[in-house]
């Protein structure tokens, strides 16, 4: 269907990414979920095509795409594999982007080319055992020590954690200064004291290596401070604003996949002498699913479009992520229902979409947090 925000360039991105994912990712998407395996062989093929640096500047080895194209790319990848869509959204939006936005030229030259080239994978380490939605509850420290920081950090549920080389660590550089004492230091895997924990055994997104990352008396060079001391939450919120568009696109991709499968099944499966598609109960569900997907799509693209024009987009990005994630939940739930008993079996893809969709309402800001953000913006007259 025709839509605003999408022109020739975005259509070409969609076609190319879809063709690649159908060829390279589709055949293994169910297996990598079942085996909880990160598909390095696909990563190697994605890397030279710019998937790991979609919006990074071309001079630094990125693809230099606009945000709408980025959203389309994440959507198409997620349509085939939610786990890989998650990997790329987090890597691009909350690892590469903050370095490009807040890093010094030297820092950008150091970290962006290997990240954008897919040779190193990025991660965003904020959450701790006692600090999820309440980010200011973090207790990790990065105490200045000469020209280094002495970092003690206990970060959990880190997306890409099991394979990440370059990690943005949120820690207190000034424990006495409350929220103004939180900073971001970039820690690299292999630094003495940098320990990657066991992989989590998750309900969905199973091909993504989610793990803990712990730093024990880890000496991180002073040059690895991103932005200024005390600007940690500022960097984090800016990163998450962007990440919301990526995750919104990811949820959208999962929802679209569930709808497409349901349409196919409803047209094929016969009960009571007719295809399911002729029964009104099923038609009502398909209609609701179509509306949810279409609205999510317009909201995600609109938020991306605003960002590209340098216009404020915080509220719109929060709305897009909130809506798309909840839409993914509703659509995948109805998809399983339409498939009936077979929808509950791993022989069909919809149960994976159902499991993958569930976490979209939780990470990168729970739906509850987003509602608070939207309420605040709305009540302030924005």
């Amino acid at each position, binding site marked *: 269907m025709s839509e605003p925000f999408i022109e020739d360039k975005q259509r*070409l991105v969609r076609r190319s990414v879809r063709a690649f994912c159908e060829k390279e990712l589709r055949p293994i998407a169910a297996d990598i979920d079942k085996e909880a395996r990160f598909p390095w062989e696909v990563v190697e093929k994605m890397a030279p*095509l*710019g*998937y790991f640096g979609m919006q990074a500047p071309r001079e630094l080895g990125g693809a230099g795409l606009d945000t709408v194209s980025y959203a389309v790319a994440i959507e198409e990848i997620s349509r085939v594999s939610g786990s890989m869509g998650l990997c790329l959204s987090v890597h691009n939006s909350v690892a590469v982007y903050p370095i490009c936005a807040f890093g010094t030229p030297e820092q950008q030259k150091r970290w962006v080319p290997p990240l954008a080239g897919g040779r190193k994978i990025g991660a965003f380490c904020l959450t701790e055992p006692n600090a999820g939605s309440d980010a200011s509850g973090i207790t990790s420290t990065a105490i200045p020590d000469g020209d280094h920081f002495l970092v003690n950090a206990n970060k959990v549920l880190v997306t890409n954690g099991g394979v990440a080389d370059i990690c943005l660590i949120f820690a207190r550089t000034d424990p006495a200064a409350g929220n103004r004492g939180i900073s971001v230091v970039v820690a690299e895997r292999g630094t003495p004291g940098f320990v990657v924990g066991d992989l989590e055994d998750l309900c969905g997104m199973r091909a993504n290596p989610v793990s803990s990352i712990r730093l024990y008396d880890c000496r991180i060079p002073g040059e690895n401070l991103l932005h200024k001391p005390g600007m940690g939450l500022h960097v984090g919120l800016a990163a998450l604003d962007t990440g919301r568009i990526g995750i919104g696109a990811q949820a959208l991709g999962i929802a679209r996949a569930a709808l497409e499968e349901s349409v196919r099944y409803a047209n094929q499966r016969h009960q009571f002498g007719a295809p399911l598609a002729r029964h009104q109960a099923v038609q009502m569900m398909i209609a609701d699913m179509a509306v949810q997907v279409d609205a999510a799509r317009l909201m995600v693209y609109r938020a991306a479009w605003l960002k590209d024009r340098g216009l404020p987009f915080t509220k719109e990005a929060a709305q897009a992520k909130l809506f798309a994630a909840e839409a993914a939940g509703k659509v995948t739930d109805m998809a399983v229902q339409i498939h009936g008993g077979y929808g509950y079996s791993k022989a069909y893809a919809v149960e994976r979409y159902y499991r993958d969709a569930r976490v979209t309402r939780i990470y990168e800001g729970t739906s509850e947090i987003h509602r608070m953000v939207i309420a605040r913006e709305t009540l302030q007259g924005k």
Partner: protein
Amino acid sequence: MPLHIIVCIKSVVREASGGAALRTPENSELNPFDRPALEAALRVREELGGSVTALSMGPRTAAEALGEALAMGVDQAILISDRALAGSDTLVTAAVLARGIEKLAPFDLVFFGTRTADSDTGQVGPQTALLLGLPFLSKVKEMSRGEDGWKVMRTMDDWEEDWEVQGPWAATIHGAAFEARPVGLAAISRVYDGSAVQEWSLRELGISPDAVGLSGSPTRVASMEKIKRARTCLMLEGEPREQVKSLLQRLDDAGVIG
């Protein structure tokens, strides 16, 4: 003299449940059979140097297909577009492309896909070559340049035919001959930075509107009707062994196996 390879491509309609379909940006894409032709040209350029031009005749929506060709790596992309061209048959298309190719001279190779995914005639390649008076080979699988001319391989059933041809020459490229490279995101970004596709009108080619379009075409599609296939179901009786025997016999009688 550096090589100049021209690849003629088409933007085709993806879905047309009613026969003829409206060409919209969402419903159009680069003809899948043209990708091996583009890939063949790019590989010749990689091996022997030179430049590749993608040429297409079509409405404005065809610009996206040319954008994809640019993202694959061709050096320039040209769209011949004019309202008067609507409804042109393959002979008119060939005549227009031939004029465009002449305007792009000098050239060494002219490649086409074997057919299009929408019209499926396979005619434009040979017709264009004939109008240009170029030696023509169909369904080419391999090629290499020798001391005096080109060596070209095509297959005929289970046989490989080796041909020799002096340039410039034209060919349709076999659909399975070259696996097209995936399109990278940085390439797409670069393509849409500047003005990607050049546009030529009929006036620039010196072609009269009367010579093209529905009125200028010696052939036209009078009507289209979907083929109705009667579904019959033959039940095979007996034990599995007998059913298998019966099935094999029927397949053999029908010439499907054996």
